[in-house]
């Protein structure tokens, strides 16, 4: 051993840090909403004209709140996981929040969409998407202008919230849910909250 080994030592410490860092997701920012009541809203339900829904309707149940849109590529990747979750049917409802169906789509020039057509067009696209890919949702509410998304601090689609029986947000996941995250994080949490 000699004193020149300290450089090597420092390098090894750096490598350990980087190796740990590889398993972390820097985009996974904790939400300040965790532990707080789910922000209230009342939005139109997709496919059931005249119906609206808000978080208080599900008081007493543990439920998932999943933000999606037909233009969101990662949602397509996540979707089978949700469909599988719904099919396994442990009774946990998933509520979809369709987020800025038209306004969020970069391929659409909103200046060319007449204001009165925005809602019907969005409903048509959203229900079409669920028809092709399967519908895991108890129901989907339409956040056409993205205001509810602002209340929930949505900054990337998809996002998923786990909300407990008293209406408190217990977890937030940004980005698509992988089977691993579903099995290791979401399912245990739901089981625990259901106790």
């Amino acid at each position, binding site marked *: 051993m*000699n004193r*020149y*080994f300290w*450089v*090597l030592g420092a*390098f*090894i410490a*750096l*490598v350990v*840090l*980087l*190796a*740990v*860092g*590889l398993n*972390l997701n*820097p*985009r*996974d*920012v*904790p939400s300040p909403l965790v532990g707080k009541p789910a922000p209230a809203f009342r939005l139109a339900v997709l496919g059931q004209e005249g119906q609206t829904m808000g978080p208080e309707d599900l008081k007493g149940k543990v439920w998932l709140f999943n933000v999606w849109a037909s233009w969101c590529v990662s949602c397509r990747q996540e979707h089978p996981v949700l469909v599988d979750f719904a099919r396994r049917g442990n009774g946990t409802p998933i509520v979809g929040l369709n987020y800025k169906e038209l306004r969020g*789509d*970069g*391929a659409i*020039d*909103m*200046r060319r969409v007449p204001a009165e057509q925005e809602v019907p067009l969005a409903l048509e696209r959203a229900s079409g998407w669920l028809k092709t890919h399967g519908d895991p949702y108890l129901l989907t509410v339409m956040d056409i202008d993205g205001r509810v998304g602002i209340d929930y601090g949505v900054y990337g689609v998809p996002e998923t919230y786990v909300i407990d029986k008293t209406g408190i947000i217990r977890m937030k996941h940004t980005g698509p849910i992988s089977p691993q995250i579903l099995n290791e994080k979401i399912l245990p949490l739901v089981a625990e909250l259901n106790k």
Partner: protein
Amino acid sequence: MIPELGHFALIFSAIVALLLGTLPLIGAHQGRPAWIALARPATDVFALLVTFSFLCLTWAFIANDFSVVYVAQHSNSLLPIEYRISAVWGGHEGSLLLWMLMMSWWALAVRLFSRQLPDVMLARVLGTLGLVCFGFLLFILFTSNPFERLLPGVAEGRDLNPLLQDPGLIIHPPLLYMGYVGFSVAYAFAIAALLSGKLDAAWARWSRPWTTAAWVFLTLGIAMGSWWAYYELGWGGWWFWDPVENASFMPWLIGTALMHSLAATEKRGSFKNWTVLLAISAFSLSLLGTFLVRSGVLTSVHAFATDPTRGIFILIFLVAVVGTSLALFAWRAPSVGLGGKFGLVSRESLLLTNNVLLVVSCATVLLGTLYPLLIDALGLGKISVGPPYFDAVFVPVMVPVLFLMGIAPFARWKEASLPEIQRAVRWALAAAAVVAIALPLIYGEWKTLTALGILLAGWILFTAGLNFFQRVSATRGERSLLASVFSQPASFAGMHLAHIGVAVFVVGVAMVSSYEEEKDVKMAPGETVEVSGYSFTFNGVQAVQGPNYQAAQGEFDLSMDGRFIRKLNPEKRNYFSSSMPMTEAAIDAGLWRDVYVSLGEPINPDQPEGEWAVRVYYKPFVDWIWGGCVIMSLGGLIAMFDRRYRNRRKTGGKQA
């Protein structure tokens, strides 16, 4: 067919790199001339294969071959030809191939310009480069193959990220990579010297021009990137302390330290171990930068599409390259002798101080860059480290560096006299102080930090001039003044020019950070806004059609004191392939100031002919920032061509 040829060429080049990286090194160790002699032809074949492979990928882009995944992801048939070519390095896979191309050319350059290098030494240098290339090629072939096919092909590609469709991108990455990769040569020389156990003045002299060359490229590459961000991102900044910027800045700081330390090693045989360690560090930091950018451990505006297997591969590669180098260093360093003694005040001690400060500043940047990762890894939460940290920590370390820059050229090697230096430079200090007090007062507002910046810049400028002319008159003899100026060694002139570049840079930073003005305003056509005496009259916005985008182009009349200067046309572009609108700022550049307009959004999206959010800037001396970098590079370039490097090599050749 052609992409497959490129792929095969790349596989063959990996085999050649493995041969280059093993046989000559073993041959050098065991003294087998035939194996040593393999280094030169293997380098030629290697460079040829990699170049061919790169051309194949370029052809796929030019021919719009969207059956290649990488081409389909980064190009489009509407993309103009110059951007189709630069799109070759617009993504992860292709930029790695570009990296490889540069590395093969550096190896080829070493082989061509080092005819006088002893064969054994050359074999070790090229062999080391070969091994590093082999590692990179494995990385490309196994995790990032740019030639992968998409079958069946698609009719149209996804297009190049609009941010990258800019002349700046055509040159920024190649320059930067030339710099990064160039440090591999200094690294290879250091490893070769460690292997041979001969860390002598000759080794330092051979390393110097290569290190300087890499440094010149890196300086230009960083400056180019900074300039590009300034005019392309539309918010007027030039440096953001983004992790990826830091990743390029750290090798620059260490490379700067290395150049200075090499000078001491060459002239006086001092700091040999230190120099070797810096050479290893500069290249290691280039690799670390690659890891940070491409593994996704840090969030950054530059983030490439990330893939965990890539991160693991680069990490293993990093461990292999840096770990073995540092182990070799730890094993060999104790047997390396110390250089000549030197006094407390001497050129050596000043260079050493400069080195320590540069390394400390690099360490602060490294700490700030990795700190979010460290805190996250310890489970202590998410934080981000931004400009306030870097400004607070980096600037104080740089102040003494700038101060010493003025003194060091006056100090003699071995032992210098402090009173003598003081006598020489006191007028320079006085002159700098006058400028530092006068300039802020002319600009109407006293700012202490700006005054300090100007003081240091003036100090460097005047001491450089003083030192240069002292030497010119001392060596003049019977010649004319001009003849004496031009007979100075290139490395001496280059050093002072580079230092002056630093002074120019400091002036730019000091002035723009204090006296810039910006206004965010809502403007209707016909309205006028005034910033620092310039008035901008908004004439409205019209639709303009580009090759692969549609733009809203604004028109502004720039005038001063009622005198019309020019029209400015900032644009807001919507590329067909992307949902993100792009801002093209309009800049009236000048030696003393830039005025800069960028279009925000229309206040009412339905009425683009109505009011717009507009940003106008007045930026005094901002171009000095990049001008200073160009002068620094020019200084490096001149120093590189010092006669001494060529002459000594020639005499070395005669002896051999």
